[in-house]
């Protein structure tokens, strides 16, 4: 049982680090490119929430949307790779991925733009979103990550 627990923790830790890796890289690339904007992605949004996404591309809002997107990506990236406050990171990640999913949902009848595969309702954004739910349910920062030091410190103080 204990061995199985360890295997599970190790697997989820790997999942957490890779998702963090993915988010962090996306965030950093955008942060270091001042010309990057989510305008095109939002302007071409489709599906039932198209009105919401096209609302975000106004002159007054687009700058905020871009900055918040980068911050959110970095929050997920940093908390997941370092293994601390990962439940907060997981919630941010779930929110962000839900937005990406609904901006370009893989629903039948909609044109799939800039995708490398074929999808029907479920795409990689949705799968990554579910993976974030797993991370939320099974925090592993105390197993491998900064949380280990924080928890241990508490333990030391308790002793």
């Amino acid at each position, binding site marked *: 049982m204990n061995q199985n627990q360890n295997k599970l923790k190790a697997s989820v830790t790997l999942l957490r680090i890779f998702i963090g890796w993915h988010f962090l890289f996306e965030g*950093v690339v955008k942060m270091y490119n001042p010309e990057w904007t989510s305008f*095109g992605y939002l302007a071409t949004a489709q599906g039932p929430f198209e009105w919401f996404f096209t609302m975000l591309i106004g002159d007054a809002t687009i700058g905020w949307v871009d900055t918040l997107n980068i911050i959110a990506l970095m929050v997920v990236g940093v908390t997941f*790779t370092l293994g601390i406050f990962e439940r907060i990171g997981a919630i941010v990640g779930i929110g962000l991925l839900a937005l990406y999913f609904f901006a370009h949902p893989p629903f039948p009848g909609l044109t799939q733009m800039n995708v490398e595969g074929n999808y029907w309702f479920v795409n990689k954004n949705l799968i990554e979103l579910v993976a974030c739910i797993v991370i939320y349910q099974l925090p592993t920062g105390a197993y491998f990550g900064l949380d280990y030091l924080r928890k241990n410190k508490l333990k030391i103080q308790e002793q």
Partner: protein
Amino acid sequence: MKWTRRDLLIGLGGLPILGAVWWAGAATSVGSRKKRSEILEQLNIKPSLPPAVPGIGGDPVRIGVIGFGIRGEQLTRALGFATDEWKEEMRLAAEEDPNNKRLEDFEAQERLNVKLVGICDVFDVRAEKFINSFSTDDNKIKRYLTYKDMIQSGEVDAVVIATPDHWHAPMSIEALNNNVHVYVEKPMTHTVAETYTLRDAAENSDAVFAVGHQHRQTLSFSTARDIVDKGTLGHVSLIQTNTNRNDDNGAWNYDIHEKASPETIDWEQFLGSAPQVPFNKNHFFRWRKWWSYGSGLSGDLLSHDYDRLNCVLNMGIPASVISSGGIYTHNDGRNVPDVIQVNMEFPDFSTGSSQAKGKENGMTFCYSATLGNGFSRPTILMGHDATMELGNRLTVWPDGASTRYSEMLEAEKMRPNVPIYQYDPAANATDAVSSATSQYFADKGLMWTYIDGVRVDSTFLHMREWLSVIKNGGKVSCGIREGFEEAISAHMAGLSWKLGRKIEWDPAAQALKPIEGVDFDKVLLANENWNIQPEMVG
């Protein structure tokens, strides 16, 4: 409190990952940005802003419209006047499709200092529509029964001519001789001889003469000029332009109005110099299908493509033209071709060379058109160093064997299939939503935008420029010189198709090289199959 090495390994194990990913992300981003700015610095292309024209001050320009058909209505809208019928149609269209912004665009259009004072249209219904739509209590619009009445009335300062082609020159000449300003649709003339007469009239008149090639106002075209001037493309040896249409409207089979009859149409005036045939609705509404009134693909659509390139390259009249084609898609009694290929030769023209002096010289302009297929073939300028797609957007790709970019290609700072420059004046305008495609993402890295990008009708800009020159002096972007070149080139293409032989231009004599036994204008006006074939579309 003491941590063992094991504690630190477990606790801080994520840090090197974070560091590595951060470094890789930053390096990727900064690296590609550096590469891009290096390319852009080398290209040094200046995206053009819309031309600023001096205001149209003083009393409003009094305008008379001659011809209020499809194009006449469009031109009148560019002047700021839309019929109630059109507004209602557009309101319904916008309700159906929120991306249809035509009414919104029209209403946002800057007001021009003009006054519509007269209409001349041989079809009562159109003349009445004009008056009903635009006549007000303080500005009663007058209907003139002939263009001469209008021009000689002393009540119009300027005329807008949107009639069948065979009327363009006679009306323009009459107006210019009376010092009335002219905005005439393309092609400028219907015959070779007229082209010279009109040039003389324009040169001897105090009035401002403009030809309706509105694309000269399109921002991407002025940017394209800068791209070519900077030698970005190297020596352009081939230009490919096209027309691809596959619908009745595109094949000039326009609607025939239910009220059309010899009672409502002044048939004799419509015919003018054309062969005297009995009243024929098909001819009246679909005049573009016969040489008597129209000029076929060469005058109707090639003239656009030719001038589009002439405004970028300023290549002038071709040394020779060969055309071929036929009536292959709409055998409905028309006698103008519906499929045509025109090759124009410019043996002494060059856009500049990056190779040994004298190695590159000369260019072919190829126009390929069909009215039986709608696949969109873009306009392409093919240079030794790069290829440019020319449209409302511009895209430039380096050529794999380019001399100018060889170092950058070798260093993989450029790749033949990756654009080095893209220009899209509408990219940041919300209007562009409907046209934004996945291409947007792929190419956005090298894209320039016109930041305050508001979609503006280029015909509006073209007319505004004409009106500004009327009031303030200066030069219109498509005047008599440009119109002359366009008309002669189009006539050469039509003549070549009709004669099945090469037509040559003698630049020293400023005339077509004569062909023994051939009267060019008789050939241009000749109507093979005239009244012989039954008209299948009615």
